[in-house]
């Protein structure tokens, strides 16, 4: 076994081990949310996976970014095919394993990848330009500083490196096939490399070409490895999570806010509509969501799926008119909070056990967790109460995220459990409760029918 095979093997093992740990942690963090069964309507779910996740249907509401994004996405998908060969070559110490058995088909597949790669290259340049020079407003909101901004650019730079890798590898290979056909099987005429190779490296001797080819090969796989370990920290998780996220979308009317059966039953028994079961527990119950534990696991999955594209924020009427609310920030905050809690839980440190549950032999778990913080340390009331529930964010999101759900859940916590909220609402609440109308009215409800018109 050659040295490069050993390096490749060890590297692969390390990368997959790290990735396994990291993705496991994300899975655990998603499960910090409330259990909720989301099932049924399999046909509708698969249709969404096909059209929205795979076909990126909702992206195409904005054609230019959609088509550019599609190039990168298609190149990414196709590169996976190429990766199969890279792994076989890397492990087996062979070169272009599929070239001979596949023959013309091989030429076609690799050419296809090359063409997509060039399109992806163009798209990447345009995206970097849009983000940094054109300064498309949705990429320049307050939440898009620091890591999120770097993240957006890093991936694009990574994409460029990948392309350099692919074309060095294929370009040099094309020339080597003529110089050393015994070691470099014929790939046929590759769409781009068959002319780009000679144009860039024509006249180089075999050993230089060999170095270039190896450089390209290693660069390619190293970028891929880097990408796998970097994904868990990045908005690019969406390339995987978009699929389950879309699959587990709730099938209910947009106009319906999640019912709260506990409260419904309580009110029903107050009104004498059902027998009082006397089941109300002694504890004062908490309603709504104060922290990620009170959100559904689906909300946390959505937070990890968020692409930080800002389509939601750019159509949010509150954000558009200068309010602090940004639906994208809501999703980013939930993810950050989930990461924070997940990290603390992993530390196992007693300092995160809530004071009243501390004791001999008690170990830190999600049920006794208390770090003195909550989602409200990330999301302010000023943000929550600026929402008009207009659903523009929900409509805009390309991966079927609802930033509105957590907003409403947090309002519920603030109003029902904290008995807080905007004081302006009190008269409205009182009038509805006592007079059955949103305003306190002296007249009869049907008085309008008697008025002259």
């Amino acid at each position, binding site marked *: 076994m050659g040295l490069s095979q050993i390096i490749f093997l060890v590297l692969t093992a390390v990368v997959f081990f790290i990735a396994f740990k990291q993705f496991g942690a994300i899975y655990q963090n998603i499960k910090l949310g409330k259990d909720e069964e989301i099932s049924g309507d399999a046909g509708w779910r698969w249709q969404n996976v096909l059209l929205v996740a795979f076909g990126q249907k909702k992206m195409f509401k904005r054609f230019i970014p959609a088509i550019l994004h599609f190039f990168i996405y298609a190149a990414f998908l196709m590169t996976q095919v190429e990766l199969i060969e890279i792994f076989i070559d890397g492990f087996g110490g062979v070169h272009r394993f599929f070239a001979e058995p596949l023959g013309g088909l091989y030429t076609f597949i690799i050419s296809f990848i090359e063409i997509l790669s060039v399109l992806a290259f163009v798209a990447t340049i345009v995206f970097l330009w849009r983000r940094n020079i054109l300064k498309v407003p949705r990429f320049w909101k307050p939440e898009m500083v620091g890591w999120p901004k770097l993240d957006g650019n890093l991936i694009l730079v990574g994409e460029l490196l990948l392309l350099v890798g692919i074309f060095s590898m294929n370009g040099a290979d094309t020339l080597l096939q003529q110089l050393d056909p015994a070691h470099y099987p014929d790939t046929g005429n590759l769409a781009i490399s068959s002319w780009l190779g000679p144009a860039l490296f024509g006249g180089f001797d075999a050993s230089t070409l060999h170095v270039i080819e190896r450089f390209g090969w290693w660069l390619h796989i190293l970028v891929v490895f880097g990408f796998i370990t970097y994904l868990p920290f990045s908005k690019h998780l969406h390339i995987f999570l978009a699929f389950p996220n879309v699959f587990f979308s709730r099938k209910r*009317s*947009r106009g319906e806010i999640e019912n709260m059966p506990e409260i419904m039953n309580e009110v029903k028994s107050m009104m004498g509509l059902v027998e009082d079961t006397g089941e109300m527990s002694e504890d004062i119950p908490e309603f709504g969501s104060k922290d990620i534990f009170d959100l559904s696991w689906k909300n946390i999955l959505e937070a990890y799926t968020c692409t930080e594209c800002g389509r939601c924020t750019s159509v949010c009427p509150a954000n558009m008119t200068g*309010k*602090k609310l940004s639906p994208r920030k809501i999703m980013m905050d939930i993810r950050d909070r989930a990461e924070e809690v997940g990290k603390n839980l992993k530390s196992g440190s007693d300092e995160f056990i809530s004071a009243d549950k501390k004791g001999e032999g008690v170990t830190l778990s999600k049920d006794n967790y208390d770090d003195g913080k909550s989602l409200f340390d990330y999301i302010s009331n000023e943000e929550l109460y600026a929402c008009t529930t207009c659903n*523009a964010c929900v409509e805009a999101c390309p991966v079927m995220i609802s930033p509105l759900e957590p907003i409403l859940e947090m309002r519920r916590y603030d109003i029902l459990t904290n008995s807080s909220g905007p004081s302006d609402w009190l008269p409205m*609440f009182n009038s509805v409760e006592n007079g059955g109308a949103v305003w306190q009215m002296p007249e009869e409800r049907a008085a309008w029918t008697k008025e002259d018109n």
Partner: protein
Amino acid sequence: MGVKTIAEFAAEGQKPEILFWVGCAGSFDARAKKVSMAFAKILESAAISYAILGNEESCTGDPARRAGNEFLFQMSALQNIEVLNGYEVQKIVTACPHCFNTLKNEYPKLGGNYEVLHHTQLISQLISEGKLKVEGDAFKGKKVTYHDSCYLGRINSEYEAPRSILNELDANIVEMDQSRSRGLCCGAGGAQMFKENEPGDKRINMERVDQALETGANVVAANCPFCITMLTDGLKAHEKQDEVMVLDISELIVQANGL
């Protein structure tokens, strides 16, 4: 006009075809009361047998639920469902998209199952069935733009019914930059109607009114009492209230037909 309550129908041993859910705005807001009247006139002219609940109606609970006050929502909603089920109501029409949404999408989970229509849907049906004719050329040559309310449009995907009614008028219909699923909120939803705005650069209704003014329309057609208030306030702030009118779709029909 003699608008009958469902209790009056019941006293005569009768049931109306459809219940007109008036809503808080339609009952008490000076501007929205005119819309209730306009819609009642349309129902009358199409000879529809309808009734209102009168004092037995109360707030659907939409603003309470969206404010986060689920207790209050449940109290309002369950009480209304008691009344509606008591009268065995099957079909409801309302001129408020918030009432429409809550009755249609939220009451079923609480035990209230009805066929619910927004008044623009009913009017458009009446027109296509030939029960209502839109006449006159009151709007000939006028520029009319249409504001999609969030709760009828984006949330309940009803973009066509109101537009089909407008197409009956001899007017020049112009769309705003943001319309249909991209329609911009007027700023009232989510119980914003009942509180001061959070700090910002602009009021949402001003943003929407600017878009409406850009079209150069003389009339902004709306389908929601809260949108009407918000848009009218916005026009007043620009001192344009005499040049540009904000009218409910039912009011356009009433004017066109001289009802």
